[in-house]
């Protein structure tokens, strides 16, 4: 990988989710050289783990296909996966980005034919499905994976299983001796798009995510609904694999809460409204969704979607922050306790499954590698004109996909301004 050429007109984009891919593609299509760094083995980030988008209920992989096509066909973009940024030093127009590239143990020869996985039996938790199921330790991260190359889990190295995989590969694509590589990239500007991670639901003790099998998170629910997911798209509850037809959605699970995340995560209301659609999609009028909320935040045109769900007879709305959840020991059902504050009605509501609409927090702490201003929640604040490191997408705030892409596009221009200053390139 020593062949990675970068100059102070190069833009380094950190994070290969929707924001990072957008920044990379938009910059390259404006004629800039881009190096896109992704920590995991493939691009796509969290959107690739969603079943549908709100409000159109279209599939994230649709837009991803277009972005991947734009990216694959653009020689100005260099993608490095399993790449982790260690340090960013220097100043706008002249950065040194130190990167560690972790071994994939599979080289460019791989054609994703899958022969290597054949003889392997060792299984590991599948991060693509938030570890709801297991997968072989030699794997293609997802059907949309780019680069379209298999990976070998480090835990397999040194075991006979690894040798089996190597022996099975017809294209000499497996290199079990692969080592981590350290490289230093020159860059004029950096776009930091490391996205978000779900708030640790276990910390919201009254809801017993760590104690009750049938309390899950909204991101996990996406995997249950997705035909590519662990249940092939059937909404089966973890405790007994029974179909969950009566589902509770708890809003502000961690958000708007001084004990957890002080900010509102913006997307969760829409996400839950969307997920009630999954319930309807699977069960029609037999499904039952109940949304426990403080305020429904369906901003701007999303209001239409909210009204549509409101009109759905299978969906109930209860203005209440659920006090706590208990588990019915026999049935494994969850019982939600609280008070509907619109006129004070007490409830002890039994549901098959409870989905916590968990909040958003920054996916990575940029301060560990660079001196950048972040707010109290760890989100990157808008850079000053002299800076050359720019936050994009959910690294800057809790954003929906649409706003994340806007943010990434804006940051692309900020980065281009820097490299153009360097190149003294002018419009005319």
């Amino acid at each position, binding site marked *: 990988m020593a062949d990675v050429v970068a100059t102070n007109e190069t833009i380094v984009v950190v994070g290969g989710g929707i924001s990072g891919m957008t920044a990379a593609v938009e910059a390259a299509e404006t004629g800039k050289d881009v190096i896109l760094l992704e920590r995991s083995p493939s691009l796509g980030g969290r959107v690739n783990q969603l079943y549908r988008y709100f409000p*159109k209920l279209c599939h994230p992989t649709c837009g991803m296909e277009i972005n991947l096509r734009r990216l694959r066909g653009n020689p100005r973009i260099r993608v490095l996966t399993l790449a982790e940024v260690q340090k960013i030093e220097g100043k706008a127009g002249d950065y040194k980005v130190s990167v560690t590239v972790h071994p994939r143990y599979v080289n460019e020869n791989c054609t994703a034919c899958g022969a290597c996985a054949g003889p392997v039996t060792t299984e590991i938790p599948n991060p693509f499905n938030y570890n709801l199921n297991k997968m072989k330790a030699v794997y293609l991260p997802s059907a949309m994976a780019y680069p379209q190359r298999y990976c070998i889990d480090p835990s397999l190295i040194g075991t006979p299983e690894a040798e089996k995989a190597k022996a099975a590969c017809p294209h000499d694509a497996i290199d079990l001796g692969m080592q981590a590589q350290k490289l230093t990239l020159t860059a004029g500007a950096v776009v930091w798009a490391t996205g978000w991670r779900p708030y640790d639901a276990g910390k919201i003790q009254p809801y017993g995510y760590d104690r009750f099998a049938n309390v899950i998170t909204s991101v996990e629910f996406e995997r249950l609904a997705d035909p590519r997911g662990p249940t092939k798209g059937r909404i089966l509850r973890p405790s007994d694999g029974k179909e969950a037809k009566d589902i509770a959605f708890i809003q502000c699970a961690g958000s708007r809460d001084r004990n957890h995340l002080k*900010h509102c995560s913006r997307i969760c209301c829409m996400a839950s409204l969307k997920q009630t659609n999954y319930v309807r999609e699977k069960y029609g009028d037999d499904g039952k969704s109940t949304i426990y909320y403080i305020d429904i935040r369906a901003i701007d045109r999303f209001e239409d979607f909210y009204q549509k769900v409101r009109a759905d007879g299978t969906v109930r709305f209860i203005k209440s922050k659920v006090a706590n959840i208990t588990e019915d020991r026999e049935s494994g059902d969850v019982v939600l306790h609280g008070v509907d504050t619109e006129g004070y009605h007490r409830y002890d509501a039994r549901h098959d499954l409870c989905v916590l609409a968990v909040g958003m927090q920054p996916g990575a702490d940029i301060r560990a590698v660079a001196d950048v201003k972040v707010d109290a929640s760890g989100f990157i*604040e808008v850079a000053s004109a002299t800076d050359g490191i720019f936050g994009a997408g959910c690294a800057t705030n809790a954003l929906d996909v649409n706003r994340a892409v806007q943010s990434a596009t804006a940051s692309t221009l900020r980065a281009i*301004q820097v490299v153009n200053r360097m190149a003294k390139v002018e419009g005319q």
Partner: protein
Amino acid sequence: MADMKVGAYLCQGCGLAERLDIKALAAVAQKEGKAQVVREHEFLCNGQGVAMIQKDIAEEGVNRVVIGACSRRAKVEAFHFPAAAITRVNLREQVIWSQPDTDEARELTQEMAADYIRMGCAEAKKTAVPVPNPAAGHNKRILVVGGGVTGMTAALEAARGGYDVLLVEKEAALGGFAAKLFRRVPFAEPYAEPQDNGVASLAAAIKATPRIKVFLGATTTRTSGAPGNFSVDITTESGPTVTEAVGAIVMATGFRPYDARRLPEFGFGASPLVVDQAGLEALARAAGEKGQAITRPDGKAVKSVAFVQCAGQRDASGTHLAYCSGHCCNTSIKQAMYFKDQNPDIDTAIIYTDLRTPGNGEDFYRSAQRKGVIFTKGQVAKVESAGDGLTVHFHDLILNDEAATISNVDLVVLATGQVPNSGVNIEAKPAEGADANVPSVSVLNLTYRQGPDVPQLKYGFTDSHFICFPYETRRTGIYTAGPVRRPMDMVQAIEDATGAALKAIQSVESASHGRAVHPRAGDLSYPSFRREGCTQCKRCTVECPFGAIDEDEQRYPLFNEGRCRRCGTCMGACPVRVISFENYSVDTVGAQIKAVDIPDEFSEKPRILLLACENDAYPALDMAGMNRRVSSAFVRTIPVRCLGSVNMIWITDALNSGYDGVMLMGCKHGDDYQCHFVKGSELANYRMSKIDDTLKNLNLEVDRVRIMEVAIADIERVPTLIDEYAAKIREIGMSPFKGF
């Protein structure tokens, strides 16, 4: 095309050699495909394989490369030969991976592969490496229409990027709506206090930027051309009209407040003590300039203020705005703070149904509560004058008191919404909820065949329909930003403006190289048409989703290549087939259809043509193959750029040449359409609705042609659809047209 030389390269890797007789395929390529060079390689995508092809291109003069290996979606970087036209033949995902690995299946699998080789060679002979449009425009200046915060930001950001900017503002001064604000909502921590509206410093920055030329009291009265080559008339109230050349346009014409006179129940108009948010800003500014406290319009001191949220918004009845304007909760909070900061003893109540302060707005909300602003979840029914003040009647939703009131209120502020200044709705749908009373005046005055302004999405907003691609308008090189695009607050408008500026810059850069922009970014081909064959039916000019085609003096279609997105909808529309692209035409597909070997009607081997959208259906088929999902071996798939590009002749040709059925797989259309060329799949469905007559004329069953809606996620469903259709064809029997 004298020097055309086709090289066919067959891969033996990924199990292809085990499953297929590659030698036989090579023979097909040579004899039937007429490939001058045919080579096999055990591992085509590796170093040597690629080098082998490069060598042939360099030394043998091969300029049409047919690659018989994996899907066009795989190994793209490896098979990248700019000097030659590439045709990918998908023997892996859609032949060996979608057919059972059994001896019985071998024959059909081999036939399938052979057909695809024939098709590949046939396509190769019809395609050429595109040469960039000689008429590409090279102007890189950016025009920004609207001098509010959005427009000023777009202008500044573009200029900082090194581009010249023209900024056109209809008022006599820059600033737009923001200039009317006393203070704005904070953008950064601690999100606790109202801030200076920031307009002055923005305007100063504009002044200090020589790259930006400002036109005040001016409007764009005529806009023609294409990206890299727009011509715009700028008419100033005082003085003449100047014509300027620009490369791209950012439309940032903002919004106007919803007309509060339509809310008599809240006493607007009836009492001067009832104002909208803009009205309150005016009071606050007036007071602020004099350094005095905000008073009632009648000069009396203010002791109590009530804010009515969602006034004429979020209205399901259809009378008022259906949407939420997003900023109003924070704005009312800010305005309540005006009073609390002026005197903590002034009572301020905000009556809301859902308080919407996303992100760090939550801090601002808490800050207001700390200042003593009272928040009440309720539905306001009526505001009426009582004595010297007002009484607000509302349903207190927490205390469930339908007759709740706040009396002796000195000011009531109505949080009315944003109505976009988006010009003329060229699709003339009733602009749902938008302010229909105000006659719409064109903003851009485009000379386009399809109308003078940017098409609107909903409620008059020019938003993109796409979640992943928020800037994609249907007018190439014209990007809209700020509240004209979607209801939004100032901080989002600033981000939006910056993004739109990037897209404008990107479009001038692409235009200057004759490249297409999203979604077929980088495509150098462009539509050419045979004027002599044209019947002036105008379908192309009407149906182009991007308004790229005008009409010349003699009413022939006038292609503006720079505006074209290369979807081929015009090509699909053309009844006389005079429109084509170098790398995609009626012939490239037609030749493939004809190349397929059609067994006679007693063979029990039907042939089904599948025209699949390359963005959704085709990847779904690929992924089904990756999952080794088996489906009928009688299907021959051809990816198309968009169902909109499907020309009827392909279907009639297929049926005439003995195909037993034709499937079209395209994206969802309608309200939540997923077609990336917006109208393509909708048009295809419209055209197909007429196919039945054609079939009747041919005496064929209507089931011989079927159009299906498929999403990229239908990995499991797509093979099922195929098998169901194959079963249907078996049921209605073989086509009578074989062997003609």
